[in-house]
């Protein structure tokens, strides 16, 4: 990666001041020319003083605190509330590019849903040896109580937040399928509200597609998966100490439904009821933000105090719909990920529209050999870790870390995969030292109800540390508003 020249004045923003590195930059091409879909935005900024720009950034962060867009770090009864830094330079995606992403995501979710249904029912893909049987049946995320289940309307993964990155070849690659309880959608919605205040004229001028109807679409989807005409819907939260509690309460508020926790619910005759001031009231659909195994101590983790005893029986009896369905986690394992392109071909008979990052499975002898020999150039990931933990970035790690991970892999090969180091694309980002390119990823949200729908927007996470490739909020990541254009 080439060095960046520090500067803060947008008016000087041209080739000389913003050298594009080896990576793909979302705003400038390799010759340093502004890409067409950013040109109006750049024109706008050229008319804005640097003082105004830092003012806008300051106001954006202040708004976040006032709106309570916070992560909770909790101890005693003092809430320590941290904001996820929101950068004021948006990530802009032209419509044609978006259509490609949209088609690819729909295809992928469609296939993954068929796959989940298959492995809990006929297991055709395992019998046909598309995916090794032991990888699925031996996974701790393969939930035996779900065998033979047919969830309402055949949908398992109702809400997905897929992570993508753009490599220096300019292509998008799928990084992770988050099929469990992907978070961050509230940041997509609230960030848009804040960024709208910063550029009131631009939205209309550029033609930015709205995202604000997400809660309406989410509610519609949740109602769709119930057989009742007017189902009672709720959001199930682990409670106030969960770091995503803000999002749970935000979504309940926006949808106008109850936010419930395990203690509010009781099961009786394979039905689930809320305990209200007027007695018991049946609930029909739960958007649950509790992990699979904590959902029901009678069926899964017996030590869970978060869930509702008996809810799984009620679910099996068809008396309550759950989104996402229990058991989806097995399909977003980092090792299963490697097989998704094959699964798309197998179930849909189509070529994958969006590519996977080439993945070496340490469980396979040949792949393992390659990984151990080339660990300096690879990113090694634990198959079941999230949040950017349990990860080695070969080119940035020390020799000692290489040695440590080689040992870890040898000891427990099934637990690791490796991928070539991608050079994540950059977007200009306001930093203390001026405006600099920072690496980003992309998390669009997909709803699977009557149709599969990709919300025209996304959470763009940005690694705020110079040169860093880790965008996770728990490790110094921030976010950007993502503008999908009508054109």
């Amino acid at each position, binding site marked *: 990666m080439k060095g960046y020249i520090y500067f803060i004045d947008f008016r000087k923003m041209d080739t000389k001041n913003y050298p594009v590195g080896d990576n793909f930059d979302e705003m400038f091409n390799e010759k340093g020319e502004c890409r067409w879909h950013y040109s109006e935005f750049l024109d706008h900024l050229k008319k804005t003083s640097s003082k105004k720009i830092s003012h806008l950034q300051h106001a954006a962060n202040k708004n976040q605190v*006032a*709106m*309570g867009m916070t992560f909770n770090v909790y101890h005693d*009864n*003092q*809430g320590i509330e941290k904001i996820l830094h929101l950068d004021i330079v948006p990530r802009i995606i032209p419509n044609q590019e978006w259509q490609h992403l949209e088609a690819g995501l729909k295809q992928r979710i469609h296939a993954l849903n068929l796959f989940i249904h298959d492995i809990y029912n006929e297991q055709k893909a395992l019998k046909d040896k598309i995916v090794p049987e032991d990888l699925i049946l031996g996974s701790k995320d393969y939930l035996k109580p779900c065998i033979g289940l047919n969830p309402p309307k055949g949908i398992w993964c109702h809400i997905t937040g897929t992570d993508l990155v753009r490599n220096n070849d300019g292509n998008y690659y799928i990084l992770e399928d988050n099929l469990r309880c992907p978070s961050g959608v509230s940041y997509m919605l609230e960030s848009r509200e804040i960024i709208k205040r910063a550029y009131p004229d631009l939205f209309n001028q550029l033609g930015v597609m709205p995202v604000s109807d997400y809660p309406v679409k989410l509610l519609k989807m949740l109602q769709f998966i119930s057989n009742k005409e007017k189902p009672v819907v709720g959001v199930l939260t682990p409670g*106030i100490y969960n770091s995503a*509690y803000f999002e749970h*309460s*935000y979504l*309940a*508020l926006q949808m106008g439904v*109850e*936010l*419930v*926790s*395990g*203690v*509010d*619910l*009781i*099961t*009786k*005759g*394979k039905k689930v009821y*809320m*305990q*209200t*001031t*007027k007695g018991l009231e049946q609930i029909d659909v739960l958007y649950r933000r509790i992990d699979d195994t904590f959902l029901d*101590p*009678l069926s899964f983790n017996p030590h869970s*105090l978060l869930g*509702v*005893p*008996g809810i799984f029986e009620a679910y099996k009896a068809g008396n309550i719909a759950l989104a996402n369905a229990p058991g989806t986690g097995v399909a977003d394992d980092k090792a299963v990920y490697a097989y998704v392109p094959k699964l798309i071909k197998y179930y849909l008979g189509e070529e994958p529209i969006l590519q996977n990052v080439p993945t070496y499975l340490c469980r396979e002898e040949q792949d393992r050999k390659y990984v151990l020999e080339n660990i300096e150039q690879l990113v090694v990931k634990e198959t079941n870790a999230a949040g950017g933990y349990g990860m080695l970035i070969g080119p940035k790690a020390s020799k000692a870390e290489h040695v440590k991970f080689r040992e870890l892999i040898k000891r427990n090969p099934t637990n690791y995969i490796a991928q070539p180091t991608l050079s994540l694309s950059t977007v200009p980002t306001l930093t203390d030292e001026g405006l600099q390119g920072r690496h980003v990823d992309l998390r669009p949200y997909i709803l699977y109800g009557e149709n599969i729908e990709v919300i025209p927007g996304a959470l763009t996470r940005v690694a705020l540390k110079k040169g860093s490739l880790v965008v996770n909020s728990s490790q110094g990541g921030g976010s950007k508003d993502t503008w999908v254009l009508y054109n």
Partner: protein
Amino acid sequence: MLSRVADSIYWLGRYLERAENYARFIDVNYNLMLDLPPDMKAQWEPLVYATGDHDLYVQKHKTFERKEVVYFLAFDTDNPNSIISSINFARENARVIRENLTKETWEKLNGLYHYVQRSADKKEWSKDDPRAFFDGIKNQILLLYGLADSTVARTEGWYFRQLGLFLERADKTSRIVDVKYHILLPSPNWVGTPLDFLHWTALLKSVTAFNTYRRLYGNIEPSKVVEFLLLNKYFPRSVFYCLREAESCLHKISGNGGQGYRNSAEKAIGELRSNLEFTDVSEIIETGLHEYIDSLQLKINQVSNKIHSNFFQIKDNFSHQNSFQE
């Protein structure tokens, strides 16, 4: 409405009202002490007695110095009833039910919380004149009330909050009256002197009732002040008024048209309200003001317990699992 949510809304109402009343208590005592004759020592102990936190106080402090008492009643997180504790609890309750609050309400309450935290960091209690802080508390809470009044729909949640507010206020007004019992005059000969008069005036001012009292009753007479603060039918801080409002909240919640009672909470509050409705102030004086107030506070607590068992009690879905199986 979820029982857990109703519970939190009720306590949100109580804690805010508690904080506001504590600000009033301290503010008025401070003013009162400024007016004392030069040879008389300031009295802060009566305030601690009236709040009912005397036992805890003496465990922590040996003397009743102003700064100690102000710290204890306003900023001590070990005191579960202090202003800072009440605001913390109010905010915790609000956080749990945030989806039920309007955006403005949450943001103002959040602001109030940060105001108290900042004031604690600045050691506000050690200042010579901390009254600006107490004004700030009162004003911000009244702002929250105004905000709720003009934005919150009159559905179940509203009535649970009002219920908490009025029960708390009934309790606190009775405690303000009780302060007078604890404030000592140098000797019985002082009854009816300007100093005695000063005490009663301060009491009325603490509940913003001085002018109203003057208009309705004229002269400051102890029994009239007691009647006004406990039994008046129209003054929104009198104990009777608060209980009647709380009762009508319970009726709204159960759908009772105003006849009899539909649950044990309504029965308990109805009995208490009618007791006050048909009591004459001379009977109270005969019973003994302090004794009467003590039993009043006990009955208010019983009403609160009944509210809890009728509306908030959640069945433990773990231990009851077996009894519910078919």
